[in-house]
């Protein structure tokens, strides 16, 4: 008897639900307005993780205090759920300092290579030599750091098995290989040209090493790949699921090339007499300005994903980097004509660039470790999409 009664209840009810055509997800909504049920009228039916009676309070407290796992004080109020506060995306397995150093050296080498080629053709032998050595040294060291970072270094040549535009690391391998060959060649020719036996030698080999044409060819080759070399590393970081690298993906290339100009120009200023260093100075100052401007956008345009650039170790590094870069740029403008001023401001610019790379690297790593940087932006994206769909259907 009771069974039949029970079966009548849904029989009365089902057609009504069918008529209104309310999707299953929305059935909760009208119920929420009933008296006596408002206490659990939260999304998902009010379910909360149960870890003993005080778990929720504990978690809230932790979040307010800025616990390492569940959140940080600046967005402590933002609500999000997670699986025991564990990270969702994996952090990059790239080693520190290998990869940040690679980013710095690759950038400095790339911009130096362009400066070196310019100096070759405008009669600035001292600037050309310094630029070639910085570019070549940086490029060779880059290759070393990159191979050392591989899990299987003996297989580094597998990078050249295929060419994939979808993989910035594949594209980068095809930039780094010719770049380091040409830049290393130009640097070697510059160095060997100083060796007395080569300078005075009469055979074809010393003549070849001394030949301006060969050195110019190498420097032009390096310069052709210098820009891509400095820029692709930004895409390398941005083309990941790491929130604070991916979101500013269109600005990071300008941060990295600006930073590369500041570093390359700065280092060339350090090693070049001031009467030949004017192009390096200009490049460094403009680069520093671009770096600061682009970094400002990265740090402020991306909501919660910009937060890791302000807090923790990354925040500290980036604040020092900004101070160094600004001071270096001002110093290069005002005192760049004096030898000691050029050395001081050049070092400051290079240090600023180095710390920027470390800071950006650290900020991304931090963003991957906290699930809020994954959940909150994705939830916001879904809400925006839903709102757009509602507006479209309402119109």
């Amino acid at each position: 008897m009771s069974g039949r009664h029970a079966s009548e209840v849904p029989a009365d009810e089902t057609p009504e639900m069918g008529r209104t055509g309310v999707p299953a997800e929305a059935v909760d909504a009208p119920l929420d307005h009933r008296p006596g049920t408002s206490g659990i009228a939260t999304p998902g039916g009010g379910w909360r993780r149960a870890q003993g009676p005080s778990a929720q309070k504990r978690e809230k407290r932790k979040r307010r205090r800025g616990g390492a796992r569940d959140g940080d004080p600046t967005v402590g109020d933002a609500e999000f759920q997670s699986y025991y506060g564990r990270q969702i995306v994996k952090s990059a397995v790239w080693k520190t300092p290998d990869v940040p150093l690679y980013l710095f050296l690759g950038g400095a080498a790339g911009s130096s290579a362009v400066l070196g080629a310019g100096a070759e053709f405008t009669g600035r032998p001292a600037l050309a030599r310094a630029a070639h050595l910085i570019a070549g040294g940086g490029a060779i060291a880059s290759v070393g750091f990159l191979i050392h970072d591989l899990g299987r270094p003996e297989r580094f040549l597998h990078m050249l098995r295929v060419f994939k535009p979808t993989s910035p690391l594949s594209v980068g391998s095809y930039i780094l290989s010719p770049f380091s060959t040409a830049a290393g060649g130009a640097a070697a020719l510059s160095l060997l040209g100083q060796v007395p036996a080569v300078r005075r030698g009469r055979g074809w080999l010393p003549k070849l090493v001394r030949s301006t044409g060969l050195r110019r060819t190498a420097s032009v080759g390096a310069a052709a790949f210098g820009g891509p070399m400095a820029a692709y590393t930004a895409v390398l970081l941005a083309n990941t699921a790491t929130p604070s690298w991916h979101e500013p993906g269109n600005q990071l290339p300008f941060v990295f090339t600006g930073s590369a100009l500041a570093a390359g120009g700065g280092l060339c200023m350090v090693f070049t007499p001031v009467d030949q260093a004017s192009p390096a100075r200009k490049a460094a100052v403009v680069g520093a300005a671009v770096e600061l401007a682009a970094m400002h956008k990265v740090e402020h345009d991306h909501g919660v994903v910009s937060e890791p650039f302000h807090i923790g170790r990354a925040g500290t590094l980036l604040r020092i980097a900004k101070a160094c870069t600004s001071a270096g740029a001002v110093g290069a403008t005002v005192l760049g004509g004096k030898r000691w001023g050029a050395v001081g401001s050049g070092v400051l610019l290079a240090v600023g660039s180095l710390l920027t790379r470390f800071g950006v690297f650290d900020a991304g790593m931090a963003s991957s470790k906290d699930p809020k940087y994954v959940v909150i932006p994705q939830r916001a994206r879904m809400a925006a999409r839903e709102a757009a769909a509602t507006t479209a259907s309402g119109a």
Partner: protein
Amino acid sequence: MISSASPAFTGNDPENRLFGPLPDVTGEAGYEPDHPARVGFFTDTSVCIGCKACEVACKEWNTLPMDDADGTVDALGLSGMSYDNTGMLGANSWRHVAFVEQSRPVDLPLPSIGAPAAPGQGVGSGGGCGGSCGSGESPSHANADGVTIDQASVLNAQALSSFDPQTAQSGDREIRWLMSSDVCKHCTHAGCLDVCPTGALFRTEFGTVVVQDDICNGCGYCVPACPYGVIDQRKDDGKVFKCTMCYDRLTDGLQPACATACPTQSIQFGDLDELQARADARLATLTEQGVTTARLYGRDEDDGVGGAGAFFLLLDEPEVYGLPPDPVVTTRDLPSMWRHAAGAAAMLVGVALSGFLGRRR
């Protein structure tokens, strides 16, 4: 070899090579039209009992090393996360059963609304929800045993309408235990596959994504590229590992080890289109029974990864299970990033060379 996605970089992507629905992902990867149908997993978490048979079968079949919840090899430790000591998917855990213990308070019905159900009166009043309950499942469920009748009678309409299979009552609280066996999603647009510079990751004839460990040089790029945090590097070995959907078993006509071991058919293996139809039917059944929080995850081919080869029926928001709510393959934004990088490179060359112009100082 040049990747087949190259044309997408010319600007538009009419064939959805980087993003969007892709009906024949295997064919797009270069296989002949007579390739096998795309296979996948449908993991129905509403019938998962958390036995971890899938984890064990996977470890045994693939000879994966032991590790703790943070991926430390040969370490044994309790994570403090319910029954979950696996912690996450990683190089040594290709199946991961998540355990989420949840509770919510249950309001007693107020005397002012209609005729409230007194304790013990549950059957006669249809579980205390009168004619407005909307749940076909709860009354018959209440008939199953006397204890449940008593408990159901003090529940309000909201609680009953949200009945789901993993729920029980305890005093004034309702408790439930969500269990879900997570696995590599074998995405239509797989970030790991897109970014692999060596070609170690490849699309199989079954439409799955597999690492060739004799090619992988451990660059680690796939690790941060996965929007789900699935693939990881084995520290001692240097190479990366993830679920292969038991490629070796598939080529011999067998099911993957985890699906074979699953005692409740929570993990179902088969042709993807068939699984999708089955999942849609299952969702409809649960919805009809009043499980309003049930939803499919990874089923929609319009999502950020073009639909997943391994998809799920979940009973709560994805992030509760440790899954990203709206994952997007990182390569979707890559053409824009390349364009900006080209602009930035041109800027660098322009700035550096312009310094040489003008009068010599």
